């Protein structure tokens, strides 16, 4: 094991110019290209028709009522709760009252869902294709040698991934080939992209898919394709019924709280 600590590989000083900079440069350029391609391919936020907006917003109102009911007096809350629960149960706000009981709409058939799926798919494609191409290019041109030593130790299984072209048994895993430089760049260039393209660029590698905010009026689109809105309404009605027992009007005893607070702070 002692040999592992003292391994030293003599590297060509021209390494920097011929390998590190080109790989980083190519990645930055493809990232910028990807960002502008995304901007050009960006389709307008889809317009929801009136019924869809109505469906979403009324459910949001039920949720708001449940979350913030302490702000209004008990009798107001009861009035609203009764109204909303009865409306939800009879399906007053449903976009498509005939679809009650049928299985949730297939994203393939629902045009709204289709749009969303396409945009997510486009984003993924835009990410995968350049990545695959660059990896292929690196494997073709930059294989067969190690270029740098990682400052932290790794376990043996990483050898096959990071030392792809160099098949030695004794070489420390810390010596890695150019493919690992590619991986390092993949995660590290986000900062550079933020600097060059502003913070909401589409070039940084986004591991989390983004669900577009397509309704300017009602906020996040909870009714992603495949959700049964009637079930959601019924669930919300149940929640409201349950929540009734926990109502505590925030104005009760507020004058005492205020006097205590003021006397403490004064």
């Amino acid at each position: 094991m002692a040999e592992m600590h003292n391994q030293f590989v003599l590297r060509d000083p021209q390494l920097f110019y011929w390998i590190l900079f080109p790989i980083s440069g190519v990645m930055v350029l493809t990232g910028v290209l990807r960002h502008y391609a995304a901007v050009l391919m960006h389709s307008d936020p889809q317009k929801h028709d009136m019924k869809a907006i109505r469906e979403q917003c009324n459910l949001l109102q039920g949720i708001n009522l449940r979350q913030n009911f302490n702000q209004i007096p008990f009798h107001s809350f009861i009035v609203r709760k009764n109204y909303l629960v009865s409306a939800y149960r009879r399906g007053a706000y449903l976009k498509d009252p005939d679809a009650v009981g049928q299985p949730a709409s297939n994203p393939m058939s629902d045009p709204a869902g289709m749009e969303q799926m396409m945009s997510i798919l486009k984003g993924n494609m835009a990410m995968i294709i350049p990545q695959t191409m660059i990896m292929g290019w690196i494997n073709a041109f930059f294989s067969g040698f190690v270029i740098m030593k990682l400052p932290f130790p790794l376990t043996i299984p990483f050898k096959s991934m990071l030392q792809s072209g160099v098949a030695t048994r004794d070489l420390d895993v810390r010596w890695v080939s150019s493919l690992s430089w590619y991986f390092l760049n993949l995660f590290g260039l986000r900062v550079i992209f933020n600097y060059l393209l502003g913070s909401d660029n589409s070039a940084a590698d986004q591991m989390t898919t983004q669900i577009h905010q397509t309704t300017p009026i009602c906020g996040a689109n909870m009714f992603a394709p495949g959700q049964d809105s009637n079930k959601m309404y019924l669930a919300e009605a149940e929640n409201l019924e349950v929540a009734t027992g926990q109502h505590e009007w925030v104005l009760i005893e507020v004058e005492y709280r205020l006097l205590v607070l003021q006397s403490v702070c004064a």
Partner: protein
Amino acid sequence: MSYLASHPQPLKQPSSSLHLAKYAPLFLDSSEATRDTQETWFLYEQLLLASLRCEDDKSAQLCLQRLGDRFGVDSPRVRALAGLYDEATATSRPALEGILKRYSALLRDDPTNMPIEKRRITLLQSLGKPDEAITALTKLLEHSPTDAESWSHLAALYRSQGLYAQSIFCLEECLLVYPNAYNIHARLGETTYISAANNDSETLAEAARYFCRSVELCDWYLRGWYGLRLVTDRMLANCSGKGMPTKIVEGLNAKATEKLAEIVRRASSGEDGWQGFDAGELEAAKELIAQQSIVR
């Protein structure tokens, strides 16, 4: 832009509107106006509104034109701004009615056009048709019940018609969307105070509690303390302990007076961090403190 940062609601006061309107011609000629950032376009919108307020129609027209060029004349928001411009520069009532017809036609084509819907409601209100405005607002709220702006507009309309119970309902809906909005709590207090007929102690106590909540949420809220002082004065004069124990009412009264005095003193002496208060509100507070507080 820095002006807008320090005065986030420039159109609320005439002085800041005037300041913005004076700046408009300079801005429109400069190269800053050609930048394509979100802030620039936001600034355009504010300048448009400020110029209309100060009767600078030329700058307003130019702002509108550029907004239309950038975003297309069909964009709902640009259409609404164009409608606003036409309303402001209309010279006769038939012209306004014509604009109203235009809005109705647009809404028939595209019922989801929220900005135009809202413009139509305000136009109905300025044409002196509050009942139609209320009907249109309720229709809007049917499909967008989480829009706090519309709820508070409806509350104002009801209040202007004297329908205080409905007004309070609408303000409560605003609270459901923004539970910590201390200004809505103060508004509720004010509406409850106004609606308290015959010095009904329960209602006055409720009004006092709304004001307490608003100052609990925001310690330096001048309007909240002012309202609290007013309500407690009325309670001490009329209620004799019903609704809320007299000791508590006196305590609140004293606290409100003390806080008002502190705010007035600090704002008048120009202390750092106490400069945001509206001059008119400070004057009113001074007058209120000067009145002798009722001691029972």
